[in-house]
Each structure stands twice: as structure tokens, then as C-alpha cells.
């Protein structure tokens, strides 16, 4: 459960995860799936992008036109991840392997329109009931959901040493930032949700284990944007959260959604 000192954070183990698994989800998660989460120094890592649900994802080829930022931060420097358009895996780089590295992907906005009922289902499934209320207040509940969505995905690659650098925000508009390096040992995952660089309260955060996606952990961030999960098993984890705001006056959409994800491997034994 939640460590002492963050009483406002609510965490629930949803064994059935019935709500999240029920029916066809109209919006899908996006995350980074590298060819390995613990590369040896000097080896090539292929970076796969995935869109899907319950941590099962379709490969997404590289489309430069959609990419705002696609980089690897390792050994104290940041380098772009190269690759060929229309090809999966989306990129490749040579791993330093000395300390924990961060892969970061940020997309430009893409437009999507959903019928009113499906849009509302998706808002409910992603803990965005606040938007349902806002739509109701605006008399828009019968209108289709016109949305522009942005992806902010990160992946941590285990190195020979852990790194405090992974706890530094990358400056994404919406970001999951670990408090410490979760690849160091299997320990409670503590993190913060930042929106425009500031802590965001009451954001729904979900953790999914790759080998057993039926058991999902959920938490809401507190006033400081903090949340935590007691990860019950070692393995590859996906931490994700979605935030939605009203789109600007000149936007072609009514809403903007920001999709943050973080993938990493929690080890069996401490490094």
C-alpha cells in the first residue's frame, strides 16, 4: 500500500480490473517497447512503439511527420534516435549500458472524433469523469467527442548502475516522473504526475505488469502530484496516465488529451 506520508493517495489493487477490461476500449494506450530492457554496453537496441490496451500493443512504424521528439538520454548526453520511416521497429541506437538510460518519445497532436456515447465510455474508462461533467455543463453530451491527442512516452533501460537522472523531468507537457530509479530494485514505485511542469492532483495512474495484465494497480495523484504503487512482482511494468483539457479557441478539436506512459523492468534482485 501507499507509504506513510502520502495519505491522500488512494491505491487499490483491482484483481479483476473489470471496468478497464470490459468491452471495447475506444481510445488506446501508447508506450515504448525496446528489444531489451537491460542492454549490454555497446549493443544495438531496437525501439518499438506500441498502441493498444492492457499492455498488448500493435507495432507502430516510425512516421517522422508525427514525431516531435524521439531521443535517448544516456551517459550524460541526449541523442536523437535514428530510424527509417514506415518501418517497425521505429528506431535504433547503441546502448551505453553503464547506467540507467531514458528513451523519450513525444508526438505532435492527432485528431480523432468519436460518437458521443463511445467518447463518454472512454472518458469513464480512463478516469476522466470530470470531462463528462464539463461536457454536461456545456450542453455537449450529445455531441461527438472531437479531440486532439498527444503522446508522451518514456522507457527506462537498466544499466550496470542506477541513475538519479531518471528522476529529472524531461519537460513534457504531461509526464510521469519516478522519484527514484525503479530499475534498481523491486520496491514501491513512487512517482509524480506533472502537467506543464507543475504537479497535477487527482490524476488516475494505472500500473500493468506485462506478464499478467489482468491484475492492474490504480492510484490517484495527491495535491503534490505524487502517487505510489507497491509493485508485487518483478518484471516489465507499464505506468500510464491520461489528462484532458479544453482545446484552444482556434483548435479544430474541442478537447486535447495528453497520454503519458513509462515502461521499465523491475528486477528480481537489487543491483
Amino acid at each position: 500500500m501507499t507509504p506513510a506520508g502520502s495519505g491522500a493517495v488512494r491505491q487499490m489493487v483491482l484483481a479483476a480490473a473489470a471496468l478497464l477490461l470490459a468491452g471495447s476500449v475506444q481510445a488506446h494506450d501508447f508506450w515504448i517497447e525496446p528489444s531489451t530492457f537491460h542492454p549490454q554496453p555497446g549493443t544495438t537496441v531496437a525501439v518499438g512503439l506500441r498502441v493498444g490496451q492492457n499492455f498488448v500493443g500493435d507495432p507502430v512504424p516510425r512516421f517522422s511527420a508525427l514525431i516531435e521528439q524521439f531521443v535517448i538520454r544516456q551517459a550524460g548526453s541526449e541523442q536523437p534516435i535514428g530510424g527509417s520511416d514506415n518501418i517497425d521497429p521505429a528506431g535504433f541506437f547503441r546502448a551505453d549500458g553503464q547506467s540507467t538510460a531514458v528513451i523519450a518519445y513525444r508526438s505532435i497532436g492527432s485528431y480523432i472524433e468519436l460518437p458521443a456515447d463511445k467518447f463518454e465510455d472512454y472518458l469513464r474508462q480512463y478516469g476522466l469523469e470530470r470531462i463528462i461533467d464539463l461536457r454536461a455543463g456545456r450542453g455537449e453530451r450529445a455531441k461527438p467527442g472531437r479531440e486532439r491527442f498527444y503522446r508522451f512516452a518514456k522507457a527506462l533501460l537498466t544499466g550496470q548502475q542506477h541513475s538519479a537522472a531518471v528522476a529529472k523531468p524531461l519537460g513534457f507537457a504531461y509526464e510521469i516522473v519516478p522519484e527514484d530509479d525503479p530499475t534498481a530494485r523491486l520496491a514501491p514505485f513512487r512517482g509524480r504526475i506533472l502537467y506543464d511542469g507543475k504537479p497535477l492532483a487527482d490524476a488516475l495512474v494505472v500500473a500493468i505488469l506485462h506478464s499478467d495484465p489482468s491484475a492492474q494497480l490504480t492510484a490517484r495523484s495527491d495535491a503534490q502530484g505524487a502517487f505510489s504503487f507497491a509493485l508485487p512482482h518483478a518484471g516489465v511494468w507499464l505506468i500510464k496516465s491520461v489528462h484532458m483539457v479544453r482545446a484552444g479557441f482556434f483548435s479544430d478539436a474541442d478537447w486535447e488529451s495528453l497520454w503519458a506512459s513509462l515502461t521499465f523492468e523491475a528486477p528480481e534482485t537489487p543491483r
Partner: protein
Amino acid sequence: MIRGWFLAAALLLMPCGAQAHEIGTTQVHFTLQRDHSWSATIITGPQALANKLEAETGQPRSSNLNADTLRAEITTLASVLANHIDVRFDGVGSPVHVTVAQLELPDDITLPSFVVLRASGPMPEHAQAVTWRYGLVYSTYAVVFADEDGGSPVTQWLDGDAMSRPFPIAANVRPLTRFEIAAQYLQLGFLHIVPEGLDHILFVLGIFFLTTKLKPILVQVTAFTIAHSVTLGLTMYGIVSLPSRVVEPLIALSVAYVAIENKMTSKLKPWRPAVVFGFGLLHGMGFAGVLTELRLPRAEIIPALISFNVGIELAQLTVIAAAFFTVAFWYRDKWWYRARIAVPASAAIAATGLFWTVQRVFWA
């Protein structure tokens, strides 16, 4: 490489503003065959497919399987996979059989892995149309429909597990006669004005309320007709094009203009036919929208254009005739006709046109 070009071309061809998630690596080629069967080739990611099938059957999730094991697992679960392929002829589901044709899982991590599935089933003899739905995909993908009996292949973009639009089966669809085609587009043109085109109706009424004399009305209607016929044709052939966010507010403004001028004068000033002609050019682009959306076969464009235009003319004349017999026929000789009917009606039209203009500029 071919797949890369396919995806690049697909991205370019994808209509702007489409409902879309990220485009994935899944592709589907669906073929209607002469022997009254159908087949579909599905290319997709093998590990993701295996994981989806495992989740479906409550099995533990696998990872890092080799090609042989992965192929064996997908083959074992082929009947589960078949349940997620929904092929319907005239709304009636077809039995589906699936096999694994090829699976590539290269050791080289820089190369893509993929599985090729072959799905097939029977086609009812007199079916008119077929739809496709594949439930095991989360990304946006293209399905290419082809018919061995004729017609051009058609590509549709589907978002995740969405159902495709019906694809007509060439052998069983009786081609329409020219008369039927003309009648269809004539009706479409008429309905596009009455009752669907309130802005066009108000523009024609604006023309009508200038005067009760026949000649000035005929001059304006002729100018309007020639103008919108020109731009309707040019727009359909892609020679001229303006975005609807520009055309639609200007059409609203044209409604306001003719009505406001009615307040100033009851005479046909020399510039009025020219102005009406100019506005007619804009209305023509507006009319073209409905035909463009139909994505007409090239052979049908000319008959469609002519009959659609005739439909529009009939609708315009209907509007004028209705207005004439409602008010002008009875009251045109009254001294108060202009003050109590033409001017207030024009004021209402002008107010509506101005409201639409603001609405289409700021709230479209």
C-alpha cells in the same frame, strides 16, 4: 520495402480529419473470387497477435517465443482468431477459416517481424455487398477490397475493430441505366436545395424580393445559374478549390448582401447581375461539396453534373414559384407590397445571413 511504400502512400491518401489512432503495421487484402468464395490476407505483428489470443483464452502471456513456437501457438488458436473476423454478405455472417501462411521472426532485431494469415469462406451467390471487421487490431489499418469479377480495388481505412463500409459485389450488382443515374442525381440536386439548403433558398428569395417584375428576376436567376454551373464543374474536376471555411461564410454573406440591397432599391442596378454572378460562383463550390463526397466514377461525372444541376434549377424555380404564389401573385399590385412584404422579408433574410456569417467564421 514494398510495405514501407504502401504505408507511405497510405498515409498520404488518408483523408484529413479522419478518425484515427496511430497507423500500425496491420494490412488486409480482401478478394472476392469467381468461384463464389472470398479470401483475405492479413499481415500483422505475430507476438501481439499471440498475446491477444492468449488473453482471449485466459492463457498466460507468452514473450520471446521463437518462430516455430509462435507459429504453432497461433495455429492452435486459429479458431479463436476466426471468431474475430467478421465477414458479412448483405448483413449475414460468413463462416471463416484461418490458416497461418507465413511467419517471419528475424534474429536481426533491426528487421520487422510479421505473420501472414489466410482467411477464407464461402460467398452467397446473389449477395450484393460485403463488409469486413477484424476485432484483433488496436491501430488504424487499411483494408483493400478487390473483386475478380471486375471493378477497381477500393481501399478503406478502419480504426481498430471498426466495421468497413459495404463493398459492392460486381457480378451481382446490376449497373444502373443512364436514366436511373440521371434521376438519382436530379433528385440529389433538388433535395440539396429543398429542403436541405436553407442558405441557398434564402439567396434565391433575396433575388425574388428585389422586384415583382419578371425580367429582373430572370436576369438574376440566369446569372446565378451560369455562375454556379461553371464552378460546380470546375470544382468537380479539381480545377478550382477553396476551403469550405472560406466558401461557407461568403455564401452566408451573399445571402445578407442581396437582401440588404433589396432594402436600398427595387430596380435592377447594372452591378446586381454581376454581383449575383460572383456569388453564384461561390454557391457552385458549395454545391460541389455533396458531389465530391460521393467520389463519383469518372464516367459518371458528366451525366451526374448535368442532372444534379437540373435538380438545382428545378428546386430554385420551385422556391420562386412558391414565393410567387404565396405573396406576389396576390399582393404584387398593392401599394404596400414592398413596404410590408418585400422589405421586412429582406430584412429577415439579411439578419439571418449576417448571423450565419458570424457563426461560420467563429463557430464553424
